[in-house]
């Protein structure tokens, strides 16, 4: 059972902080749909027996494409692979890119989860980070989605934005929670090299709140979300009970998934080997390979057991529930704590582990704040020592 991810690389306009693979919609968009459908057909030939338990259309802004195209890609997936009847089928959208009619078409075609990029509710801040919509335009999209039949909806929020105060952020959470979405993603802004925002910050044309202020915002936001009934289940993700994103859980459980579209990444089992591979990251290169009838692979890495173990920890510790020690043992034949005893003990001294359930390896809230430091300690374990 796998998850399928479809990358749609188009946007109305790229936001100032964004380093994802996206471009303004152009004449390649027409060829893109058929290229992805071609990739689905080729993938079917390579993995004839796979079954699909989740589908996720991400971007970019998937709804920058006409809804007909999106539906025909989903249909192609259903034709090629058996999709479980209760499969979670998500799609991301941004305000201003789709209206009621389009949303209804998506819903009727089988999309049952919608993720809306809002980021914040203050129009001045939205403008400052280069979003093309206002809060009011988001509200219109949200209402249209409800009217079209979507009941499982995520809203993306961000904190640590230029000019944002803690009051702004908490206000955004309250406003959004009042709409009662099932899921809220709350990301801390990551300043990525090569983005316009990065250049502005470096040139001191723009300033970000200082890291301690961002940490305060994040902590206060977390408390508020929990108080409003949104349970934190991953570093940046909160959901009403039972509405955790099943597709994203596949990543964090280190389970197989197939990525379709430009720059998409996959993790699949091929002939018993775990393989991570990525697609061509430029649209022309991606289209060209598929138009020649070839899979658009750019890189391919076989992940050995030792690396898989580390990846399972790196991803699993992002979850509040942490890692199920039995699942880990069944997959790798060793106990996660015993194998990484030194890293475990060191971080135990820091008081980072949650000991409430001995069947799981999980960080407490303080530990999750230091996840990268914890992972660096786990990374100290070398393959050579493991083999001994």
């Amino acid at each position, binding site marked *: 059972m796998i998850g399928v991810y479809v990358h749609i690389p188009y946007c109305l306009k790229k936001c100032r902080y964004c380093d994802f693979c996206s471009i303004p919609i152009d004449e390649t968009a027409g060829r893109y749909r058929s290229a992805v459908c071609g990739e689905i057909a080729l993938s079917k030939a390579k993995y004839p027996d796979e079954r699909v338990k989740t589908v996720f259309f991400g971007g970019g802004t998937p709804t920058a494409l006409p809804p007909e195209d999106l539906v025909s890609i989903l249909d192609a997936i259903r034709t090629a692979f058996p999709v479980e009847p209760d499969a979670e089928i998500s799609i991301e959208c941004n305000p201003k890119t789709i209206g009621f009619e389009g949303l209804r078409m998506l819903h009727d075609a089988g999309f049952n989860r919608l993720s809306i990029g809002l980021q914040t509710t203050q129009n001045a801040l939205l403008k400052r980070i280069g979003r093309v919509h206002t809060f009011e335009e988001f509200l219109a999209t949200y209402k249209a989605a409800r009217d079209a039949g979507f009941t499982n909806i995520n809203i993306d929020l961000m904190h640590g934005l230029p000019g944002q105060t803690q009051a702004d952020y908490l206000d955004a959470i309250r406003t959004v929670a009042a709409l009662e979405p099932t899921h809220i993603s709350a990301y801390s802004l990551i300043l990525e090299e090569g983005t316009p925002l990065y250049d502005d910050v470096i040139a001191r044309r723009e300033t970000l709140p200082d890291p301690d202020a961002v940490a305060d915002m994040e902590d206060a936001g977390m408390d508020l979300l929990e108080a409003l009934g949104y349970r934190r289940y991953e570093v940046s993700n909160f959901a009403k009970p039972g509405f955790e994103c099943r597709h994203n859980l596949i990543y964090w459980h280190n389970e197989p998934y197939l990525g379709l579209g430009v720059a998409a990444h996959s993790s699949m089992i091929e002939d018993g080997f775990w393989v991570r591979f990525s697609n061509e990251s430029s649209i022309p290169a991606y289209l060209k390979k598929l138009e020649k009838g070839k899979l658009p692979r750019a890189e391919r890495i076989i992940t050995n057991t030792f690396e898989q173990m580390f990846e399972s920890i790196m991803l699993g510790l992002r979850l509040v529930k942490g890692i199920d020690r039995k699942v880990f043992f069944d997959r790798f034949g060793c106990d996660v704590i015993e194998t990484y005893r030194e890293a475990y003990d060191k971080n135990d001294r820091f008081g*980072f582990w949650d000991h409430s359930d001995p069947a799981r390896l999980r960080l407490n809230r303080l530990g999750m704040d230091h996840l990268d430091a914890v992972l660096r300690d786990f990374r100290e374990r070398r393959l050579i020592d493991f083999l001994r």
Partner: protein
Amino acid sequence: MNFDPNLIRNFSIIAHIDHGKSTLADRMMELTDTVAKRDMEEQLLDSMDIERERGITIKASAVRMFYHHTDGKTYMFNLIDTPGHVDFNYEVSRALAACEGAVLVVDATQGIEAQTLANVYLAVDNGLEVLPVINKVDLPSAEPERVIREIEDVIGIPAEDAPCISAKTGLNVEQVLARIVDTIPAPTGDPDAPLKALIFDCFYDNYKGALSYVRIFDGTVQAGTRIRSMATGNEFDVTEVGVFAPTWKPVDQLTAGEVGYIAASIKSVAETKVGDTITTANRPTKEALPGYKQANSMVFCGVYPADGAHYDDLKEALDKLKLNDASLSYEHETSAALGYGFRCGFLGLLHMEIITERLEREFDLDLVTTAPSVVYRVHTLDGRDLVIDNPTNLPNAAEIDYMEEPMVKATIMTPSEYVGTIMELCQNNRGVFIDMQYIEADRVNLHYVLPLNEIIYDFFDSLKSRSRGYASFDYELSGYEKSDLVRLDFLLNGEMCDALSTIVHKDRAYAKGRAVAEKLKDVIPRQQFEIPVQAAIGSKIIARETVKAVRKDVLAKCYGGDITRKKKLLEKQKEGKKRMRQVGSVAVPSDAFMSVLRING
């Protein structure tokens, strides 16, 4: 066939940094066709990168030139270049001892500086004839008459007919060559007497072994001669003798009055000591030349590989540098904080900087160096006398009767407007005023006795900044004095970090402790937990700062496409951490150990 000693002139050039010594030497070599102009590398004598970059001479070197005088005769000039820094005072004195004269170069826009004065006195003490030359007369701000007066008043040598030159443009450099012949005496010495040669420098060559750079006072030496060191008694067979033309050029023999090198399959420069006298084994000279001293390290510091795995590489690099630098000393030491490394001894702070820089550059090593220390004498209550060059080895305060620290006699020359601020600086550094002399209406010569400990850190930099670069500084060791000293320790997260300990005067301990703790707070990156930084004397905490804990060290997003990237990012972060030393539970950046020095206590 030997060159007529009456036609030989052996001399060196004395000048302050930037007054034009190397440029003048270059012009001389051009005028005497010693090197073709096209082969000239800027400032040929300073051959190490560091020397060229810093504009200073670290090692002595020599060059032979032939000058066709207006009297129709051809003279052999041996120019012996001297190091230009107080750390190398002894080397300078030996190089001067190899000469009959010295050309004193003074910048017409500046005047005499403290360092120049010290070296002129050294020259006079060695019985050298001093030929003053006024340089940079082409500059608009040149005041040759004032500078000539200053030379006469301060040094007390006639200077009214000193050549006024521009080494840069070549103006009147010819005059300098002629005056060298007329002013500086020819060497005396008996080529038939037993060999008596002064080693003024040495150099290690991979093929020839350690070369002794020598001035022959009496006798003759050639390949096959069995020579003896009068300082050590060691004997060697000469394999080659040669001259500096300007690179090594073998000759049949070196004879009284000449300057050249001797190769004798000597394995290390440590066996060919600067200042030593070489003679023949079967017919030794009766008396060695005076002035030989064992080089003593004045400043010590711990040198550690940033990555403990490179200890052997560091050892090998030190062994190699030692081949060519007898004044460098080192022995293995272990630090609780830094692991395996070396306690290294240097002639002074510049020497220390040069060696550590060469280790990093030429041997591609990442180093952690600890705060430099001088050598203290410690007298314990049970009657032991200890010599301490590492604060860690200081006995408990309860066991110490009293301590002594090395003092220097400092000479500072400065325009009079900066006297106030410089006196304040000296006072702040526990200086004791001796006297002040007016050289001219607006220039003074200040004398102070200062603890060496106070001037090895940033005294020179402070002096320069307080005087806008105009003050110059020289010092000589003046002995040991009883002093109220304590060891200042630093604790990170409650654990003592031995590599940060220093010995300081009791009155300064509080200020220094506070300043270093503050500095450490800034240079130690925030970690997973709060880190108290404490300064302590014995068990008493005198200052405390806190490095706050990191709040968030977690990437907000990690989905399917981020996984490989995320792993790379973790690896990169780990590399960054590698450049830190783990002191107990605390990761400390390598440069923190040295940065604590840059404190104006």
